[in-house]
């Protein structure tokens, strides 16, 4: 039995979501992005830097009772593009989804350029970024052309 399987067996959940294949070291960011502090009272298991055939090392987050909204999935894709989402019902995986970053990301992120039209509160325009590179993530503002790097994205979505 691999160490990965051992970890997974320790804390099975009845209903909820397992977010697997999170890039190593980002599990806490994922919790922050989902707004989970641990004070909610639900079971949260978190494993970091565990061996993974696909990624070398990975993080896993399991949350009892969690259902991800579309907005949360989109945001998750930006900080953990390699992640898979397993929806658990009655201790079994009922649905498995691979997430991916869309070509264009609207409204989630903020342009870094203070002179960009998308930064002006009174103008009716929402931010829009096009993916330039996926690994590491690099986005370009569709309005002013400035880049957002993966670090910028993580910082914006998790507050640091």
């Amino acid at each position, binding site marked *: 039995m691999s160490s990965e399987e051992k970890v997974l067996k320790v804390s099975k959940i009845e209903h909820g979501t397992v977010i697997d294949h999170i890039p190593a070291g980002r599990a806490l960011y994922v919790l922050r992005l989902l707004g989970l502090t641990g004070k909610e009272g639900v079971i949260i298991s978190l494993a970091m830097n565990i061996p993974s055939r696909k990624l070398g090392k990975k993080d896993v987050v399991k949350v009892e009772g969690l259902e991800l909204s579309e907005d949360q999935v989109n945001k998750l894709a930006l900080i953990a593009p390699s992640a898979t989402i397993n929806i658990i019902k009655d201790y079994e995986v009922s649905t498995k989804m691979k997430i991916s970053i869309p070509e264009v990301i609207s409204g989630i992120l903020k342009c870094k350029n203070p002179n*960009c*039209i998308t930064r002006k509160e009174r103008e009716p325009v929402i931010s829009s970024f096009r993916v330039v590179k996926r690994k590491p993530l690099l986005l370009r503002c*569709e309005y002013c052309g400035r880049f957002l790097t993966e670090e910028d994205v993580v910082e914006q979505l998790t507050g640091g």
Partner: protein
Amino acid sequence: MWAGRDVISILDFTREDLEELFRVARRMEEIERRGSDILRGRIVATAFFEPSTRTRLSFEAAAHRLGASVISLHPTVASLAKGESLADTLRMLDGYADVIVMRSRLEGAAKMAAEICVNPVINGGDGTQHHPTQAMIDLYTIKRLKGGVDGLVVGVLGDLKYGRAATSFIFGLTRYRLERIYLISPPELRVREDVMMELDRLGAPIHEVTDLEEALPELDVLYVTRIQKERFPDPAEYERVKGSYRVKLSLLRKAKKDMIIMHPLPRVDELPYEVDRTPHAAYFKQASFGVPVRMAILSLVLGAVVE
């Protein structure tokens, strides 16, 4: 295809689009002085939220030459001073006019305008990257004075980081097969990384240098732009470099006899008056092409055919 189209970035236009524009512009040069009425009954709105002399006046002149009427927004006295948003102001103008020519300090303002206006929007300059009609005039100038753009060695000198005319011109050059494009600037004012990446993607034959003299002997075209003192965090650094980016008469001895010097104007001291008298000086000719090229742009986006 031009009819009904917005003109936001030079990168939205193919070489074929540009060639079509230049054919019409050549025809406009012939009819410019006697005028035409192909745009009679049409209204061109100019909305310059940032000061402009050449761009606004040449668009207005172009509109008048073709028989259109012009309405102009002056930001200091207009709705913006009362706190109206750019978007609301533009929607209003969209209701009054058939095409809007605009300039704003805000980057991406023209793209937003194009999204909310029914009628075509022409970007007369926004932020630090886009000034597409200037780039069209610049390419037309090279075509007219050098016979074509392919195969040339072009140097772009000055503020390549914040100068929108320079950036648009460099983007425009990617529509042709140049031999080489020299980007000549102090390290502080190099082309930004995001722009450079786009140029790489487009396969532009870029060479970045800091020394004008190094590139000068090879150049067919030298495009000069102004270096602004306020761009330097340290004024002493500006004082140190400014001389190296001045196109002095003595330096021009090293240039090819038929090299042309262009400048989007206004100039300050990067281009001394004594250069005006040399056969290299092409910047006033370039400025004069502003009207026929803008006549061509207006007629094409409004779908009016020149006889």
